[in-house]
């Protein structure tokens, strides 16, 4: 990862929010929007430029579930583990994704293609069980659909 670019992104974002301390969450969100995760270097830049202890930046970055300190894969798979989806078998669906990808929730495949995350309700509970892949909602997912869904994305890669 290009250190200079990260520093620049972080600096620009901080400027965009006028170095406003109450906007640290928004700043982190924007940076994560660029890199898909929060590079360590960006956190240091925030700490220095905004004059907040690094520990506080880390506190925020680790408190909120949507931030990741680890790089994420190219495709983001989010399994809804909300109540409606749980009742419709979400646990089995998560299991099957783990099995098919050979990773556990929160991990990224070795080839950097997929990151598997569990989320608590995507607000599409009437379509349970729901999976979100790169922002697209898959409704009424059954375990047996999963190999097919993954195949589509893997095929794209080969192309």
């Amino acid at each position, binding site marked *: 990862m290009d250190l200079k670019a990260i520093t620049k992104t972080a600096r620009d974002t901080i400027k965009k929010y006028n170095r406003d301390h109450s906007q640290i969450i928004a700043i982190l969100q924007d940076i994560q929007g660029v890199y898909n995760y929060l590079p360590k270097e960006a956190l240091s830049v925030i700490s220095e430029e905004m004059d907040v202890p690094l520990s506080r930046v880390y506190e925020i970055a680790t408190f*909120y579930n949507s931030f990741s300190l680890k790089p994420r894969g190219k495709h983001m798979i989010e399994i809804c583990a909300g*109540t409606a989806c749980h*009742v419709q078998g979400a646990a*089995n669906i998560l299991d099957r994704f783990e099995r098919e990808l050979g990773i556990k929730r929160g991990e990224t495949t070795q080839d950097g293609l997929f990151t598997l995350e569990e989320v*608590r309700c995507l*607000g599409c*509970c*009437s*379509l*349970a069980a729901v999976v979100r892949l790169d922002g697209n909602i898959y409704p009424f997912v059954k375990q047996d659909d999963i190999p097919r869904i993954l195949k589509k994305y893997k095929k794209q890669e080969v192309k």
Partner: protein
Amino acid sequence: MGRIRTLKDLDLAAKKGLETLFPKKTKIMVGTATSGIAAGALEVYEELKRECEKRKLDIHLSKTGSMGMDSLEPLVEVIEPGKPRLAYGKVTKDKVSPLIDQVVSGSIDGLKPAYRIDDEDDLIRQEKITYGKKIEAKLKGIPKINELPFYKKQLRIALRNCGTIDPENIYEYIARGGYYSLYRALSSMTPEQIIDEVTISGLRGRGGGGFPTGRKWLSCRKAHGDIKYVICNGDEGDPGAYMDRSLMEGDPHSIIEGMVIGAFAIGAHEGFIYVRNEYPLAVANLQKAVEQARELGLLGDDIFKSGFSFDIKIVRGAGAFVCGESTALMTSIEGKAGEPRAKYIHTVEQGIWNRPSNLNNVETWANVPVIIARGGKWFANIGAKNSTGTKVFSLVGKINNVGLVEVPMGITLKEIIYDIGGGIPEGKSFKAVQTGGPSGGCIPADLIDLPVDFDSLWEAGSMMGSGGMIVMDDRTCMVDIARYFFDFLVSESCGKCVPCREGVYQMYEILHDICHGRGKKGDIELLESMGKSIADGSLCALGGSAPNPVLSTIRYFRKEYEAHINKKKCPAGVCRALIKYSILADKCTGCGVCAKRCPVECISGERKKVHIIDQGKCIKCGTCKEVCKFDAIIVE
């Protein structure tokens, strides 16, 4: 159009809105809320656009929010001047061309409309909107919307505009009487009168706790301080609930208008809407709405020449359930890690940056303009005695008609689940309904006649919560549900206090053990007593109500716990360690589908002969049961 400063300006804006709300030409609306989009509504919209252009048709195409009946998505409505609104369900991309054919020829022989709307009441303007007076004979067979069981008992107050207006068009909101209440409040009411009206209405907070809104506003108005804030809680953290998403996406101005009225009553000039990170479309629509309101002078300085100024900022959450709690939410708006604070300092006196702050839920705010338009008394007459008005519920889980429903409070669970929801699918029996999210509980089938209001649900060991209703049938294990909620709470406890951080974890471990066949005698009693101490010893309501999912399931489903602990059996067939899948010889046709689909290849058998499962290899995922067309797989 320039700024709206007078009633006349507002009338002009309404007129402009009517031009697109009820255009003089054919109009086609597509429901493009998140649930519609998931079903493919955007592609349908694009296809409609292409088709209209291709055929050079002069049709007004528009997007709208959700009508709530999610099983019909993607939903497309056709409105022709002087004729009833016709709603077509499940309109996929390939049905667009035939649909347009029908619109052009005026027939309804191909695609059948799911319902029609002949007229509706405009709640705020208090007039009947008639779409079609004379109903053609061919339409007589199409049910009217309020004849459908799903809608018959509904009363849409908060959701009044969802699915009817284009949420990205402020003029359409105004055409439905929007911002007239604000005009009324600013031009002819004192802050005290507004608060009185809200108090008389009996409105209680829709975010879960049910605190009287008028009383909260009054305390915040009385609190000392020049700078005050009003906040909208759009964090909607309860899993299984999406009412607020639907409102924020489908009618953002109703929330904004409510907030401006509230801010005037309280004496606040700045507001925040805190929206959940998982709701990108809600953020986008709110952002657009705020900008439009600003452009027209409905936010900003000197609104309606009253001298009153107010503006709103949208804040995105970052995925922490505890941030729905009032003090945590305010800490998060300050840009910190959202840990709750002790409650003895009231946020109405010391909230954001220690200034008086008034927090209300999305749905609470959306009710305000109606209360101002119709009066508190009118509102108080709807619903139940101490729970006035309506409540929006997300009716999901094992239920036939899933979706969002808004019903007068006091309606029974039975009416919601059977009359509106159409009962349980696949002939299974109703077991329980979960309300109140992780702070709530499971209400058993015996209590099906329970009226749904704040107090009755509380007495039954659950709570209203934000409005999620997750219906469960006999294939849902109540111990597993309790374990599920504790798994949720373990990861969402902020960790500030020991009883919640450690206690919830310990209770989770016990539940986990019970589900894995390692339950011991005395576990149930231990859970009960731990639950009590956690509730007593926690700082915020997350910990305070955390034991509810366990206590309520023990209260109503003790036998199921005992079966897990004593007999090492999961009667619902869910807990993997306690169940076994097998194939019924008399039902198995030997089609081999299960063997092909089993992820661990543990099913064998010759074609057209009975198959068997290798119990040693079986991981109990249930895929075989999912794919078997002959119901030959059983779980016990």
